């Protein structure tokens, strides 16, 4: 792991993107790494594009600046594709994890990516199946573990997420979210 492993999330206000970034950081923190996670608060309107950031490191993280050259870009809402800033600062090997029903090759083309690996996950479908509404975070976290096993394995993610969710959710919802993580992990496509 280089000094900081950096993740940039793109979502929409009200979708839980900030919570997703924070939950992922908490899970990674549980594996013994130092983490930080923070939102890029603009006007807090439902539906407005929002960004959130994660940094993971083996040593203390000192910087608080937004992530400019991400190792991973998490796109929580497929309708953001084509909008500004998604691929900004991405390097040749920046990983894209996209919540979409499209296949990975098509998504890669839509994002005009070449060398960058793209992981797609139908997180909305998974979420509707399990929760009967659109809360894609847990499936996105599962997809992240699939894309970046060197940061967190599925086993570690599930173990940590159980602890994190137990603090904030009822028991049946903890179970469903764990299920969503596993589905997210399993249903990933790559290109």
């Amino acid at each position, binding site marked *: 792991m280089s000094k900081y492993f950096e993740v940039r999330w793109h979502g929409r206000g009200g979708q839980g993107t900030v919570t997703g970034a924070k939950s992922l950081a908490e899970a990674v923190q549980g594996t013994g790494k130092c983490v*930080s996670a923070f939102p890029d608060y603009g006007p807090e309107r439902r539906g407005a594009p929002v960004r959130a950031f994660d940094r993971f490191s083996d040593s203390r993280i000192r910087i608080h600046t937004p992530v400019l050259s991400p190792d991973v870009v998490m796109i929580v809402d497929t309708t953001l594709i084509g909008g500004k800033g998604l691929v900004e600062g991405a390097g040749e090997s920046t990983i894209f994890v996209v919540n979409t029903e499209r296949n990975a090759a098509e998504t890669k083309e839509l994002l005009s990516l070449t060398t960058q690996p793209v992981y797609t996950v139908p997180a909305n479908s998974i979420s509707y199946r399990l929760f009967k509404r659109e809360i894609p975070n847990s499936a996105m976290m599962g997809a992240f573990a699939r894309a970046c096993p060197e940061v967190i394995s599925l086993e570690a993610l599930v173990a940590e997420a159980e602890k994190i969710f137990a603090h904030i959710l009822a028991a049946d919802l903890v179970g469903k979210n764990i299920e969503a993580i596993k589905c997210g992990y399993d249903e990933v496509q790559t290109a």
Partner: protein
Amino acid sequence: MPETRAITGNGAIAEAMRQIAPDVVAAFPITPSTQIIEDFAGFVADGKVDTELITVESEHSAMSACIGASAAGGRVMTATSANGLALMWEMLYVAAGMRQPILVAVVNRALSAPINIHCDHGDSMGARDAGWIQIYAENNQQAYDNMIMAPAIAGHADVRLPLMVCLDGFIISHSIETMQLEEDRQVQAFIGEHKAFHSLLDTANPSSWGALDLHDYYIEHKKAQQVAMANAKPVIEEVSERFGKEFGRRYELFESYRLDDAERVVVAINSVAGELKEVIDELRDEGEKVGLLKIRVFRPFPYAEIAAALKNSKIVTVLDRSTSMGAYGPLFVEICSSLYDANPRPMLYSRTFGLGGRELLLDDIRDLFEESKRYLNEGKIEKTSDFLNVRGG
């Protein structure tokens, strides 16, 4: 057992408050400090802390209630930001003049207008003359640690002054960071008992608070406040040292980062210090003699100690995250005063940044050090004072 957690700055302050377990918290919500009181209200509702939580109708009332509760002998805390702190203004001076050791978490945010919710230090810097001790924090850990130290400092018999713990809005308040929360019992043993001072509730020994002082006594009471501030300096050092022994994290009045042989120094407050350290490490690897002096205690201001720490510097850039309209930034003014008698006196200039949350990126900081290098080589400062990252130059 101490616990390593990824928690927001606001969450960390709320945990510190739970551990301090004040008798009274009177508060009114304002972004970005709201989560502190939200979390704390949860602790009260869950019975984790036996605090009287007073939800008032304004920040002016919040501080008024704090003053009354403190004069009644309670340990008292609150949290606020920006316009909320501004609405407390009148009562800040009353709290200080009445020597009530009230603790406030100030989550730094820009003052209106235009309305802005993001970080700058205009709020607490504006309150710098109100008679409150001000301690600033770079990150979540330091905000938490400063709050744990606050009761012992503010309530010390030689001090008895109200105290603000300042942390950057959003950048710290809303970011989760890996940090260490200490064990409740150890923290409580460190803080010690709160000693009431002529409590209004002590009916056997009645007292009056807030009486009139005219030209016959007002200035004597102000002199006493000034002396208490001077006393606060060694007390802060002593409490910080005890904290270091107890919990392993050491704090001084300010932090000297790679300062000993630094020729080019930046002086700054709060979270930007993290970015500065990052760039300084890079520049050091490139052989540049650069360093940071990070202010922790702004009131009382450690003039002599800072002068000594900067004695080897050749050029000093002071970063203010607030401005005084029609004057230099408040930190720059203090650093100038610190260095007036220095011989030789380093070159010195002021840069204002980050108002209303404007970012200062790592590249910007590199540029800043480039500029100080050029000034030093040319032996001349082109602009004594300027804004960074402002469109239109």
